[in-house]
């Protein structure tokens, strides 16, 4: 007797069940977004009118969240608003840009060049808005930043305290919920709570009364533009600061040259003594042409590439531990950001193509999931072709095949593998220019610091054929 339990009939789903569940899911997502985006109910206060306007803006931003596919959303980018524009900045922030506002963002860091922008930040790690006049840091709240006068100053200048570029710039920060800190590198810091505002300009950072007071003062320019004598004095004071900062930079450059000289002397001594440079164990991802030939024989590829850099990565402490200078942090994170941009430029369209053209979905699921999607769809369509893409990528890296051109027809897996497998060496080349070859290698292949993705794919050797070594 064989067991046959199939006579036990189960209950069938009623008509319309899927519709009802999907509707509940939609409603739940709406509620989730709305509760995260709208300020919680509070007693009426004197900034009620302004709060209402913000609630509208937040609701508008929340509604955008729900539109899903039409939403401009990315972990990095830049935007200049011609009309009111809502943008999702990564996974936890929404910005509502008023006409004329301009921002660039990467992860949890925004640079606001000009204009009036409302921000809603979900609680989490520190989120920062950098302006020419001062920086705003928060951990989750609603606030608005107004920047008057665009400058060419970049973040590095700001951190270094090059205030010449900030002359004439002023930022007003109004807080609708929670607490934020407004600071300047050398101008102090002030905490602002809900209903309050503060201003940062060439005279430093200071509280500026209620939201309404702040808006009025900022609108008529009284907070950022003083009478001619005051302005002239401020200008002179800033000039002094500029000279001081330049001297500091020259001093830093001197230190860097001294360090480079010492490193070069050490290497020379080691080479003359017959010592081998870089005696540390070689990473399995530090692949030369011979390594790639071995992998190609086995039908394998390996790739190491950095995660998206976050503010605070490669901070002074970590850099010091690695024997690097504080200013190297920016070089490293910039190289990582460029790496991410290069990879995403290749993987994003492949992912969207696999998803039937849905670029917005590719943006939402991100690089990691997209890699799996491209793989999976390629396998489903043509498993042998996908395997061949892996083998060919290994052979190209081994120098056994020429690198295909950007417009050359190759399959999606091969294209993706080429994008991923080349990154470690590309970044190494970039960092070598600034850090020297040993430090560059240590940053990329060492395990000291940072977040890296180490991946490998293997499909085995071909049954026969393939390029000759």
């Amino acid at each position: 007797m064989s067991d046959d339990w199939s006579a036990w009939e189960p209950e069938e789903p009623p008509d319309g069940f899927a519709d009802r569940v999907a509707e509940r899911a939609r409603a739940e997502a709406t509620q989730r977004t709305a509760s995260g985006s709208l300020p919680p109910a509070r007693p009426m206060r004197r900034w009620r009118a302004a709060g209402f306007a913000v609630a509208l803006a937040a609701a508008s931003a929340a509604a955008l969240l729900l539109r899903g596919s039409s939403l401009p959303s990315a972990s990095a980018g830049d935007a200049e608003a011609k009309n009111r524009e809502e943008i999702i900045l990564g996974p936890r922030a929404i910005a509502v840009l008023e006409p004329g506002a301009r921002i660039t963002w990467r992860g949890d860091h925004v640079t606001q060049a000009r204009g009036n922008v409302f921000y809603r930040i979900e609680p989490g790690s520190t989120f920062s808005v950098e302006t020419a006049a001062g920086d705003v840091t928060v951990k989750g709240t609603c606030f608005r930043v107004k920047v008057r006068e665009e400058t060419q100053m970049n973040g590095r200048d700001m951190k270094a305290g090059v205030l010449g570029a900030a002359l004439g710039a002023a930022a007003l920060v109004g807080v609708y919920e929670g607490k934020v800190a407004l600071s300047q590198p050398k101008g102090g810091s002030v905490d602002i709570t809900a209903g309050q505002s503060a201003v940062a300009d060439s005279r430093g950072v200071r509280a500026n009364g209620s939201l309404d007071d702040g808006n009025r003062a900022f609108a008529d320019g009284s907070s950022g533009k003083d009478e001619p004598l005051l302005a002239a004095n401020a200008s002179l004071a800033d000039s002094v600061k500029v000279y001081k900062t330049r001297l500091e930079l020259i001093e830093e450059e001197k230190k860097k040259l001294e360090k480079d000289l010492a490193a070069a002397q050490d290497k020379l001594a080691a080479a003359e003594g017959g010592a081998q440079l870089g005696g540390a164990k070689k990473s399995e991802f530090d692949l030369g042409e011979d390594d790639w030939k071995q992998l190609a024989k086995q039908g394998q590829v390996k790739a190491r590439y950095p995660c998206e850099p976050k503010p605070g990565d490669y901070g002074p402490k970590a850099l010091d531990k690695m024997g690097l200078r504080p200013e190297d942090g920016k070089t490293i994170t910039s190289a990582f950001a460029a790496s991410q941009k290069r990879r995403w430029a290749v993987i994003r369209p492949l992912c969207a193509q696999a998803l039937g053209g849905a670029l917005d979905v590719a943006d939402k699921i991100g690089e990691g999931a997209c890699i799996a999607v491209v793989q999976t769809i390629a396998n489903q369509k043509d498993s042998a072709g996908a395997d061949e893409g892996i083998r060919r990528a290994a052979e190209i890296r081994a120098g056994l095949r020429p690198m295909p051109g950007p417009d050359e027809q190759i399959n999606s897996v091969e294209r993706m593998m080429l994008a991923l497998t080349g990154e470690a060496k590309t970044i190494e080349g970039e960092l070598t220019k600034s850090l020297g070859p040993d430090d560059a290698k240590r940053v990329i292949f060492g395990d000291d610091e940072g977040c890296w993705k180490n991946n490998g794919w293997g499909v085995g050797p071909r049954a026969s054929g393939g390029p000759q070594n």
Partner: protein
Amino acid sequence: MIALAMGRPDALLASTRAAPRPDEIDVATLARCAAQDPVAFRAFVARYERRVFALLSRLLGRGPHVEDLAQEAFLRAFRAFPRFDAAREARPSTWLLTIATRLALDAKRSRALVSLVPLAADAAVPIAAAAHVSAATDPEAEHGRRELGRAIARAAATLSDDQRAVFVLSEFHDLSHAEIARAVGSTEATVKTRLFRAREHMRARLRDGEERPDER
């Protein structure tokens, strides 16, 4: 394609060598579900609703609670989709059935559901008769098959909750021992033991004709 995961592989970096299963939803829809797309999620529900209802009604008996719990299981899945890890989950259905199983077991443990399998009014048909009625097309044989179904349900109702979960997941949903162990929060060895005992118990109840109306 074999994914050799080294270091910190991406969450969705799964081995995808196996041919796509026609009874599972496609990767593109899964990706949209992970992005909290309600339209894609509706397709997901439509694909798996019968399996979830089948599981819950066999674990808990028929009734309005099945729809309530099925809805809750799908909503939990919707909330968890952004964390859905294709590298860990062999099949989306297994992941969903795990959610539904835990929900059902929790509901039983919290005594939220008082009644179990509704008892049939008619006599049981021994499992030995199954061979004669399973391919039936005439009304009489069809009646016999329904009777058999009721008998199996009654026999299953005498299993412990954990045994029933193991039995149903294995016999009706094709989950491996490892997958069942994860679903019920147990070990593979325990699952094998429970499954063996559950089958023996079911066979004995049906073979010996214990599932009779006067013995319920």
